[in-house]
């Protein structure tokens, strides 16, 4: 099951490596991970996307809690529908000729993506959305043009409703 785990931890050297190390030591898989300081610069927030069942997720969160520099951990047990999540995607694509350039512009309009850099031969496209939408946009662009480079940020997520992850 696809799971999003959010972690607040002390913004210290090596803190991130302990979190990542825990996943590798215990044989858990990280699909993607994002990390950045919060409004309080001494606290880092990490969002991890992982595939796990309920039992495994329980174990992961307990082990994460146990790490000395982890302040809070939250993962929704059943599904990820309670999470607002976004990923950012950059695509550098071959854009030579009027037809391709027009098609790419058209796709960006449909998907509400942006062209953020233009050269005579290339476009850089930017798209923000849930991971599944990112996949769809990527597929659409690949069908219309040659993709030179792909950069995905990994998931950044926040829980809906009353549940807030704070120090």
């Amino acid at each position, binding site marked *: 099951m696809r799971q999003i785990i959010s972690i607040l931890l002390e913004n210290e*050297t090596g803190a991130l490596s302990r979190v990542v190390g825990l996943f590798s030591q215990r044989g858990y898989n990280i699909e993607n991970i994002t990390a950045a300081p919060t409004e309080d610069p001494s606290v880092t927030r990490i969002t991890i996307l992982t595939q796990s069942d309920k039992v495994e997720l329980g*174990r992961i969160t307990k082990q994460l809690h146990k790490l000395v520099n982890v302040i809070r951990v939250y993962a929704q047990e059943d599904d990820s529908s309670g999470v607002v999540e976004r990923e950012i995607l950059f695509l550098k694509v071959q854009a030579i000729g009027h037809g391709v350039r027009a098609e790419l512009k058209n796709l960006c309009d449909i998907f509400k993506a942006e062209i953020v850099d233009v050269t005579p031969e290339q476009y850089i496209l930017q798209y923000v959305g849930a991971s599944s939408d990112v996949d769809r946009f990527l597929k659409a662009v690949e069908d219309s043009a040659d993709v030179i480079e792909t950069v995905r940020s990994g998931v950044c997520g926040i829980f809906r409703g009353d549940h807030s992850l704070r120090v």
Partner: protein
Amino acid sequence: MEKLNGAAQLVRALEDLGVTEIFGYPGAAVVDIYDELYNSKKIHHTLARHEQGAVHEADGYARASGKVGVALVTSGPGATNTVTAIATAYMDSIPLVVISGQVSTGLIGTDAFQEVDTVGVTRPVVKYSFLCKKPEDIVPDIRKAFYIASTGRKGPVVVDIPKNCQTKRYVFEYEQGGEVRLRSYNPTVFGHRGQVKRACDELLKARRPVLLLGGGVVQGDACNEARQLARMLRLPVVCTFMGLGAFPESDPQCLGMLGMHGLYAANEIMNGSDLVLAVGCRFADRATNNVKKFCPDATIVHIDVDPASISKTVHADIPIVGDARVVMGQMLQVLKDSEIRPNSELDPWWKQIDEWRRIHPLGYTKKEGMIRPQEVIEKIYEKTKDLDPIVTTDVGQHQMFTAQFFKFDEPRRLISSGGLGTMGFGVPAAVGAQKALPGRLVLCITGDGSFQMCMQELAVARKYAMPLKIFILDNSVLGMVRQFQTVFYHHRYAGTNLDFNPDFVKMADAFGCEGFRVKPGDDIGAAIDRALAVKDRSCIVDFITDTNAIVLPWQRADGSMIEMILDEEGN
């Protein structure tokens, strides 16, 4: 306020934390710290002969005394040599602070001489670690290290201090600092009241209950509470290997050790119980055998200070996170206010237990012309039980024979590497234990394989004229692995023959110890008496024992608790 350099601040902080003993080995990256230690009147330094020995010594010291053990080593190889010993302490939840030198901050990452990423290398085997970036970090970090090591589920903490942070050239005001507080680290102490109540209710309902005590009861100093609880409700008590001594083994209410080489009755009780009250144990694979077949009828109540240990392998029906002593105290309080069933209601259960004890008591057969290892342990126990000795062991058959045939009545008497199973632990742990408890009888029961893994530490025992008794069960093979080969690998003894062992008696002499050999036909009891009479130095007794001995009972792999091999023919 007094101005001190970084190294002096470290030493002062250690003094203020009550440290009196450090085990270590110097090197370029810690020479400033050593220079300051040289001035200290409160801290004694024991020079080990290998960094692994130093950390095992600190570990033995911690296990025997209940205090935090402290080791000091240099950067690079000094630090990497400690890894096995740190992992040993980590697996058994022993409070240690390991201080390592590091190359100067400007050299970190340049592959400098004796540079290694100590924090990185040790990360999976520490509870936490610090890399001090500036001299001002040293005192706060060392205070946090002691706090983290000694609270919650205890464990080793590494503090890595670069050389330039220790320098004499930079002095600044020493501030002792107040109580340590960490917002990200708050171990739960009190058990959830509702859960405690539920646990008591279930306990009173149970007709086939068992109290299972693990190392957490020993490390958490919760033995009194466990004993009260067991006696109040007439519970049969089973111990894990790490929990031995939590309840007096010579008391008929105690069934001894469970698990792979546990006692027949202890394993039967677990399997037949309707309620397991497990305290401070982690249901390790060697204790449970196949977890799917573990205690099929039992409600599992699990008390542990580490939430990650609960339902990790065995599902807990009633989990209680908290300090073992506090939570059992809460239970005692609830039970005092409850209507307790008459203890006679457990009569049928106890009748069954006594029957199990009767059919397969712990035993072995004597063999003509051979010293049986079990016989040696039995004799050692008989000769020393009134002297309340501390017993360290190494790892292998002798360790299991000790767990079975030596009856531990008090906690912190058996000092052994249970989780990691580190051969070479016994001798340095004995040195550490003797440092913690001068004047007490310290025995090290070891094998000829294990003994050779850290025997250089005998020099330390010699230096301090420690009267350690080192009993080697010398069968010229690696018996524990060999017994697998005997039973499961068609007697193909690959790599388990210790041909050309050194002469341990001559070695004793070389290390300034007393030493003698006991051969088949010799009087074992007299040999032990002779060893006990040596008071001014250590004594090594080399018992030539039966090569073919097998540790029994022996649970069948992947079976239930009661699928056990009970005789040497494999039945």
